[in-house]
């Protein structure tokens, strides 16, 4: 069996990792760091053998190290990154109920305008425009239960970033 190479993305940064046969991991061509599984979900890592906990789900990797949590996505070499473009749809970050839909197709909206109000875990979560733009399509209606990641509103934005926050 030969060494395994993979690319992990955290935020905007890609890390190239090589995992040797003995489990040691090298990052971006750096020196190999020993890695040993200590128990289910537990690992000892690096020259000091620091204790970390890890989990995986699909391409996602989670690491808990000294009270910090780091998340990574294993990049598929065959696919290109989908960048948040000017047409990126707005989706709920979690299962939620639509309380109110303010967005109307074709309407011009300004940065900060509330497009949709969701309710989840007994709190209201407004979905707001992160930039000026025009509503291209509305895919939800009041009272509907929506799943995470499914587009609620599509916009032609003047800048690329869409934002979800809470007042």
């Amino acid at each position, binding site marked *: 069996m030969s060494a395994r190479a993979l690319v992990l993305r955290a935020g905007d940064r890609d890390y190239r990792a090589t995992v040797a046969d003995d489990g040691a991991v090298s990052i971006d061509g750096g020196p190999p760091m020993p890695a040993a*599984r200590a128990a289910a979900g537990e690992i000892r890592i690096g020259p000091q053998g620091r204790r970390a906990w890890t989990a*995986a789900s699909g391409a996602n990797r989670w690491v808990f190290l000294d009270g910090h949590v780091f998340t990574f996505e294993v990049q598929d070499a065959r696919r290109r990154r989908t960048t948040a473009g000017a047409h990126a749809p707005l989706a709920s970050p979690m299962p939620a109920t639509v309380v109110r839909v303010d967005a109307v197709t074709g309407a011009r909206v300004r940065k900060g305008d509330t497009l949709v109000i969701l309710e989840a875990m007994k709190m209201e979560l407004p979905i707001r425009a992160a930039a000026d733009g025009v509503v291209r399509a509305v895919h939800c209606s009041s009272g509907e239960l929506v799943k995470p990641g499914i587009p609620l509103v599509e916009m032609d934005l003047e800048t690329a970033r869409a934002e979800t926050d809470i007042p």
Partner: protein
Amino acid sequence: MSLRRVLVANRGEIALRIIRACRERRIDTVAIFSDADAAAEHVLAADTAVRVGPAPPAESYLSIANVIEAARSSGADAVHPGYGFLSENPQFARACEAAGLTFIGPPADVIEKMGSKIGARTLMAAAGVPIVPGLTPGDQTDAGLVAAAAAVGYPVLVKASAGGGGKGMRVVRDAAGAGEAIAAARREALSAFGDGTLYVERLIERPRHVEVQVFGDNHGHVVHLFERECSIQRRHQKVIEESPSPALTPALREAIGEAAVAAARAAGYRNAGTIEFLLHGAGEDAAFYFLEMNTRLQVEHPVTEAVTGVDLVHAQLTVAAGGALPWTQDQLTQRGHAIELRVYAEDPRAGFLPQAGTLLLYREPQAPGVRVDAGIREGDAVPVHYDPLLAKLIVQAETRTAAIDRAAAALRAFPVLGIATNIPFLLRVLDHPAFRAGDLHTGFIDEHLDALLDEPAVPDEAVAAAAATNAAAAGPAAVEARGAADPWSDLRRWGR
């Protein structure tokens, strides 16, 4: 009278905590569950479990009819409401009484009286307890509420008259922002409490939230169990609570304790309750104002248990069964320091957005002086329908500094993966110099938000750990085991 079988009208950590106390007294327990909780830990821990409806709370945990029917069908003779849900609903307390069930809490009319912010304020003012200026306009239209805000004087807080826990609460700094805030507060109040009546109150800037645990019995005894400071809040919900408060001088501690007992006596209070105060200023010059009374067990009651050495849930059961309070005021002592940290499934960097999903990995810390109250386990799915509280980490130590150090060490050994939690955020609060100095106010998190959201660079070890983890080998096999959901449906039968 003694209790034979208690129905616990709640879910999550508080349901488990009550079930465990009952078990120690050899009292049978009945859990209730919605469809989202059929396999939840509180269901497994109880002697019997009864389904009360589908996942949405209004159709299950908030359904008075369904909960009363569950008590009847399971042969319960008493009901513990926990906190939230129906715990401060006087109709529920009355329905229990009508069904011949002992309600483990205060009498319905006391809940009603103190549940109304207006009535409570009036009562407290009459009893000589200091109050914050504010009013509930008879005209509950937007215009009426805006006028009330102007009368009280900006900045104001608009909040649900029926509620608590920060739901339906908004800060309004001027008339311009009032409209949307009032509408939102009303909607949330309606959704959470079924009552959209709003109350407008003068906002005291940089106050501390200091509350006093009180306890009364049916024999005329009322005691206080010292204070808890709960100033670390986000979105008007408590995140960190501690006792003693670093702000109270001995004289002030005595005064606030006496005020709380006076308040409880004025309310005709029985069982466990909490008088919340705003504390303004510091040292000898500090002043406190009655904020509201919570007529139930608090989320943060373990802080009081840690410093006083008493068990509040046991005392609730004793008092509800007609017994006398197990302690006189003189027997109660406040020793050492305790801190509670609420571990929420939320993303602090996304405005503390609640998170739902599967706990791929969940390991609780263990150490002397560390208590974890939780209602979930590794592999559980955190449902979208309920409060995102995952666990409470309670530490106690000889001093405040030792308690902070203990809490920080415990959080660093509390890995939760699969959904975002506020654990890293809590650590940054603990390590913030202003927190260490005890320089707290309810706007602490907002004031220091940038520093508290600051994340470290990704260390090479973290990348290496991620690279060493592959989907097949990582995570506990227990997740797979519990994911095999079919057997769960069998559990529902047992309620019959």
